[in-house]
């Protein structure tokens, strides 16, 4: 690789100190995203996808501690950057859209004004031009009657409309990387598809890299160049989509595929993944956090460290891969 990746996360560990113990939410995770690339991050609920996104954005709450690792974004050391630098970067170079579109908007501020706030902050424009550009952005994300809708409050718009506003805010300043944290959860299927089309289309037009977080492996294989599979705070597999789809190597990925509905697969053939995520507050977490649910487990699996084998551009964290 001649060019360094746009985003690289190396050996990142994050813990939450809570009253009931320390939650080891991320442990030594690594992945990278190149310019213009779309990378999916998949895994069950609680596997640490959102925590990863918040850590990259440096939006973790006070209970969180980053205990190891490095995050480089476009040459900037994100973990060493001060608050001012980060605030300059966010919304301009690095944006995020959220899982719950309506709750992510200020309930008592007009949506056009909320878009304009971002432009005023980053785009070096006056109030009037910011307002005009906000309306143009609304049109761009496919909102009919944009100048009227700019004056609406979030509660007057549907969930899909609110997510379009979220996209308009995130893309207002043409960021280099968009982090989309389950952008279509809670929306109906048709709206899901249009929202995803919108993100891919605008992303392509702007040459923007996208980190698409989802629990839906099907969606990820459909939309992404590469997929990072997470389980209980570990990256268990990281591979180009086609290779992953053709032959998953980590037992968890295989299980995820088996649990994903596909055309040509009867409902009875869809299997569920046995067991649940281990309690991340335990002090004696096994090196492989999937071992208790795994049918390919061997004695070696209980001995640290967890292997992280990279072969032909794909990473597998397993002693006994498929």
């Amino acid at each position, binding site marked *: 690789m001649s060019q360094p990746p746009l985003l690289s996360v190396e050996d990142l560990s994050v813990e939450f100190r809570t009253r009931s113990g320390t939650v080891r939410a991320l442990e030594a995770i690594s992945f990278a995203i190149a310019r213009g690339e779309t990378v999916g991050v998949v895994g069950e609920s609680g596997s640490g996808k959102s925590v990863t996104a918040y850590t990259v954005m440096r939006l973790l709450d006070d209970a969180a501690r980053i205990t190891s690792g490095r995050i480089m974004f476009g040459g900037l050391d994100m973990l060493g950057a001060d608050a001012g630098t980060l605030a300059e970067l966010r919304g301009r170079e690095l944006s995020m859209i959220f899982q719950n579109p309506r709750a*992510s908007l200020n309930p008592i501020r007009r949506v056009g004004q909320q878009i304009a706030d*971002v432009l005023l902050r980053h785009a070096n424009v006056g109030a009037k031009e910011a307002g005009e550009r906000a309306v143009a952005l609304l049109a761009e994300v496919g909102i009919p009657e944009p100048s009227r809708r700019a004056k609406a409050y979030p509660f007057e718009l549907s969930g899909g409309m609110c997510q379009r506003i979220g996209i308009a805010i995130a893309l207002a300043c043409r960021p280099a990387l968009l982090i989309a944290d389950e952008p279509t959860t809670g929306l109906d299927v048709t709206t899901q598809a249009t929202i995803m089309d919108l993100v891919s289309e605008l992303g392509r037009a702007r040459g923007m890299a996208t980190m698409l977080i989802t629990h839906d492996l099907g969606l990820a294989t459909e939309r992404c160049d590469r997929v990072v599979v997470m389980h209980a705070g570990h990256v268990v597999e990281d591979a180009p989509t086609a290779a992953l789809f053709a032959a998953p190597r980590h037992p968890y990925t295989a299980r995820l595929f088996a649990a994903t509905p596909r055309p040509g697969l009867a409902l009875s053939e869809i299997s569920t993944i046995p067991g649940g995520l281990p309690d991340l507050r335990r002090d004696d977490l096994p090196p492989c956090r999937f071992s208790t649910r795994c049918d390919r487990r061997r004695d070696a699996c209980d001995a640290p460290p967890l292997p992280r084998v990279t072969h032909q551009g794909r990473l597998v964290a397993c002693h006994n891969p498929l």
Partner: protein
Amino acid sequence: MFGLLARRLAAALPTLAGVIVVTFLMTRALPGDPAAYFAGPAATREAVEEIRRQLGLDQPLWVQFGDYLADLARGDLGLSITTGQPVLADIAQRLPASAELTLIGLLIAAGFGVPMGVAAALRPNSWVDHLCRVIATAGVSLPTFFTGLLLVYVFYYQLGWAPAPLGRLDAFSSPPPQVTGFYLIDSLLAGDIETFTGAAAQLALPALTLGIFALAPIARMTRGSMLSVLSSDFIRAARAAGLSGNTIVIRYALRNALLPVVTTLGMVLSFLLGANVLVEKVFAWPGIGSYAIEALIASDYAPVQGFVMAMAILYVALNLVIDLAYQAIDPRVRIEA
């Protein structure tokens, strides 16, 4: 807008009816015989009975209530036995004094309480937070008359910064020509700076006393609601969009956090109206609170009834204003209304 106003006023009618009945019964149930008080200690038994007849106090209770209602309908709140004036005139004359004191007290409480709450919420469990908590707890746990006396002792008696606690203006000034009845406003309207500063100096300590008392609920409410707003999704989204700290704290968080604070202002105001009574007594403030206390001590029914009615009307009116303020900030309510 007018629909809402009418609906709110209609909803207040049962409250007012209840207040009328309760005040009537309450004053009758209080110990003390107004006829005896009015007749004086030297009066004979016959003289007292004569006065009782004149006052209508020998009639059955429901007849007295009927008379009372008929008088109310004519806007007649009765005569004060102590001042010899119509109660309505007394109250109309004294109400602005109380209203000015209460509102300035509330302004002081909000002016300090809201920033304190915000500062505490921005750094929970820091020394700022603890300091705010100590100040607020001290303010609300000290009885108002004690705070008042303490302030008088320190700022009048010891330091000599404040004027003597003897009413709205010192003996050498005359009140400004009446427009609103608020000396601060009327003196400014008359362009009389000297009276303005005089009135402000007199007002400072009693208003501060009330402000200190009302600080705690406002600061606590602001802190709590700021904390919950600051941890909400849209604040995280605003930070993800890189908005500046000021925009996030003031335009995004505080405006949302103030909604529940505005709602509690109604409760705070009713606290203040209650606390007013003692503060007026301490500072010889010629408001309706001290008027009511004097009447109560003299078993003078009419002013007490008038006072409670005035308070009820004031309370309803202030809550209406608060509702309108809430609507002005929250678009969601505007649509429903």
